[in-house]
């Protein structure tokens, strides 16, 4: 039961962080390696809003998500839109973003221990097991955001436009969809969600300049496993990854606990190279 809870909380965080990456991947057909760094920046911003400005941590999270959403808009305008057909350039710029963000975080942090104030204290006993309220809140809010995102993707005009752009950008444009506006909205939502995930993880585990690297690897695997163009598939693969991580950590010692899930995912990708829920686009 404890494993199930761990898996669900981890899975939700992976999904939230990965949705933004997947949005950009599906809409623009490119990989934003800087996504993990933006997740980290969101967490740091939230911390400094709480610590330096004395703002309530929930409000700080909302501000952080909003600021990062604007950053997403800017990135779409100055990076993705300009270099849409130049994969190499986007990868290089993404690596630059990571280096810049990490160096700034190191300069700011130094050796200090930075932790975002907890969103909930205390323990709750469910079926005779202790679960921290922080984990419950993380799971609850993560689930709400996920459902909201799913609603937008599946039941709104923007969602339908996103699906159209993901399937065929030129075709969508010919149908009168403003593809640039859709891309900008996607980047804003995606980076904002990454910031929210960063804020929760920053409260749960503390901050470090490299926190985005670990998440980046998970995100990349999760999106590949879901397959290109699939939004809903990410939810399933995110949950699977949460379970894989939680189980392998119990079953294998040390770095093997991290390596085994990757090996399993590589094998799964060998069986289904296009992922489990993707389409040919």
């Amino acid at each position, binding site marked *: 039961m*404890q494993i199930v809870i761990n898996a669900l909380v981890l899975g939700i965080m992976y999904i939230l962080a990965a949705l933004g990456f997947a949005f950009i991947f599906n809409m623009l057909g490119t990989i934003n390696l800087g996504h993990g760094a933006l997740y980290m920046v969101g967490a740091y911003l939230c911390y400094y809003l709480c610590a330096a400005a004395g703002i309530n941590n929930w409000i700080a999270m909302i501000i952080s998500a909003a600021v990062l959403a604007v950053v997403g808009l800017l990135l779409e305008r*100055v990076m993705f839109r300009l270099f849409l057909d130049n994969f190499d350039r986007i990868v*290089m*710029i993404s690596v*630059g973003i990571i280096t*810049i963000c990490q*160096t700034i975080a190191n300069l700011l942090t130094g050796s200090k221990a930075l932790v975002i104030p907890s969103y909930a204290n205390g323990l709750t006993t469910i079926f005779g097991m202790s679960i921290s309220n922080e984990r419950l809140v993380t799971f609850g809010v993560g689930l709400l955001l996920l459902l909201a995102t799913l609603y937008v993707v599946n039941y709104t005009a923007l969602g339908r436009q996103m699906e159209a752009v993901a399937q065929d950008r030129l075709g969508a444009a010919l149908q009168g969809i403003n593809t640039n506006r859709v891309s900008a909205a996607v980047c804003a939502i995606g980076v904002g969600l990454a910031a929210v995930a960063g804020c929760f993880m920053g409260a749960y585990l503390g901050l470090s300049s490299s926190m985005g690297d670990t998440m980046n690897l998970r995100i990349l695997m999760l999106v590949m496993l879901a397959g290109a163009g699939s939004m809903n598939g990410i939810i399933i693969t995110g949950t699977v990854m949460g379970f894989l991580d939680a189980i392998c950590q119990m079953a294998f010692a*040390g770095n093997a606990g991290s390596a085994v899930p990757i090996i399993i995912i590589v094998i799964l990708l060998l069986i289904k190279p296009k992922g489990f829920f993707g389409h040919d686009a």
Partner: protein
Amino acid sequence: MKKLIALLLAMAMVFALVSCGSSSAPASSGAAAPAESAAPAQDAAPAQDAAPAEDSAPAEATKTDTLKVGLMVHTTGWFAGVDTPNYNEFNAMVKFINDNGGWTVGDTTYTLEAVCVDGQSDYPALRTAAMSLVDSGVKFVVETNDFWVNSCADVFEDEGILHASAYCVSNATGYLIPENPLAFTGSDGTVGDYQACFAALHEYYPDVKSVVLANDDNGLSTESLDLMRSYAAPYDIEVLDTMVIYPGDTTDYSSYAKQIVDSGADAFMGNGSPDAYGNLLKAVRALGADTVMACAQGKPISMLMEYAGEKASYNGFSLGTSSREADQAKNPQMLNDLVQVVAQEYGDDAAATFDGAAANTLYMMLLMMQKAGSVEPKDVAAAWTAGGQVESIYGTTNIGGTETYGVENHAIGHPRPVSVMNPDAEGGWEFKDWIEISIP
């Protein structure tokens, strides 16, 4: 417009890369230029409160010179959080010595010049950094943890450079070996810190009778288990066969906390970083367990408590020093003085996280130079391996490590303080007495 944006982005990248690769000030540093400007005093005594090595008190200095001392740590990348204090404290030690008139060896008083390079938390970059130190002409290098630097020890060995790791995480990493006659370590390292932890458990948590070792892959190996048991045996503490080993990139400690609780041990012990151990403690408490936490790290307990949170911060201790004014009477004076320099140069936050490993390693080298009466690495190495006792920044220090590492007198054992969590005390923790350590 397109070209302008591309140019701006390229400039930003170049700036970031330059700031990563340079040898200039890293995280949280306000000033970090090598201390070149301090004029060496003619009658310079070594640093004020530090006694020189017993064999050779410095003679009257008639000459002055500059001595380059290298520092190779990671000030960028994932290990920067661990190494930034090393950077700050090393440079604080250089400043401290220069401000006190320089360092006298034989008839010469040296002004120290720090040459710092960044390993970028990356093995190839570390090797490049080592080569750049060779090019800069240093003969003495303080370096980061053993599991990093055993990958480039040959660079220094081939050039006859004496190099000492600020912290050895294991006696089995292949760093302190006969093939590296110029490799040393200038702090207790894992083996000394575990010794101190068992002694502290006995002193402050006498009900603890069993311990499960919990660490990341880099800090503990099954080869060390017998050694740990030998440290625990005098206190009738059982070290369980089960070891909880978590990956360095853990994103969730719940599974490992569950393994600790399921082991049934009275305490868990390891030398994980403050963030890892703080999160592990938090996860253990989230399972409703009161298991004692013994963190075999010289990092202040307050850092660990930040990660664990107030509610989880009880029944635990670390081997961290204290820079609180009320605790200073328990510290060696030199440590207090050095903390003050760190505070002046790098701010109160840096002082509050004082560990001193790299600073002490440099100080050990300098003491051995005096003992040897020479600044030739081979002479200094010979003085170090001759053994004996010296006064380090932590107090009386025993040179040793022959049995533990399999090389004669390449390590040291220095006292460690104990900081115990106590929700009723000021700041939630108490600073206890120092524990004597010697590495067999």
